[in-house]
């Protein structure tokens, strides 16, 4: 259970960006890979606590799930796999695949409002 520390890192990242741009953040858009090792529900649960007493207090966390995409050297093509429990190529069954997407843990965008002067 390391989602609280992950949530805190997301808040820190967003606060830094907001300060740099002189804006108020109302929502954080996160891209979360199925193989990131971070549980979405636990992260959502921690969000309010992580935002407490920061410039992000009252903001929302919006999570975009990123599925696992592998590159199969046999098919020479990328394939989306349905489950993280089976990473063989879904087309040819080959086991030599590389994970190209699905490990993302990225603050993708911020919904912001200008700070009232």
């Amino acid at each position, binding site marked *: *259970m*390391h989602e609280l*520390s*992950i949530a805190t*890192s*997301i808040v820190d*990242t*967003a606060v830094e*960006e907001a300060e740099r*741009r002189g*804006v108020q953040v*109302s*929502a954080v*858009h*996160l891209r979360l890979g199925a*193989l*990131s*090792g*971070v549980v979405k529900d636990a992260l959502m649960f921690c969000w309010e606590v992580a935002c407490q007493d920061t410039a992000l207090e009252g903001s929302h966390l919006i999570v975009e799930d990123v599925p696992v995409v592998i590159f199969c050297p046999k098919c020479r093509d990328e394939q989306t796999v349905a489950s*993280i*429990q*089976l*990473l*063989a190529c879904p087309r040819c069954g*080959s*086991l*030599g*695949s590389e*994970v190209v997407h699905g490990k993302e*843990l*990225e*603050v*993708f*965008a*911020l*919904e*912001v*409002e*200008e700070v*009232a002067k």
Partner: protein
Amino acid sequence: MSEPRLVEVRRNVLKQNDMIARALRERFRSEGVFVVSLVSSPGSGKTAFLEKILTLLRPGHRVAALVGDLATDNDAARLKRSQAPVKQIVTGTVCHLEAAMVQNALQDWNLRDLDFLFIENVGNLVCPSSYDLGESLRLVLMSVTEGEDKPLKYPTIFNSADVAIVTKNDLAVAVEFDWSAAQANVQAVRPGMKIFRVSTKSGEGVDDFLKFLAAQLAEHKSTTPA
């Protein structure tokens, strides 16, 4: 107040850890030390296996270990019986090691004196998967008593590792461990993963692993700048 607008920032949340890990990996490469980390659930035999490996490697190689735990330095005390230099990292409430903890622990170490450095992570099959420690090789251990479906239950950590070690093979018959099911499960979550089957107690399979490590070290040294 003005209408909200969307600004793209694209920032990796673990960038700080990844940057330290990259610096560590560069240091390990330039100083010619091969770094192996171990992850597993608590009680799968990481410390026993590592003590055995340190003891067997020591006559021919210069070895050392870092070991992470939430509390106590019991594991460091056990590993020191191998006569290798060992340092405990007590994480307090943190359920995994991070690159910065490894960096701090190694601050006053001369890594040129070493061939192998082992890093035993906190016993946890979930959280360590997100944190790169700069290691060259990550081992994931599962004991036969934990069941064949461990990889399916914790696919992320298996996917983050390079090699799987099935431990406590001396108990396999007693717990009716299904080796082929275990192999299939590892391959499903980490296609092509190399698997060793060992018993730390009887020594079975340990030699094969040592040969593998020696080959990895030779390859690593061949890329070390003179």
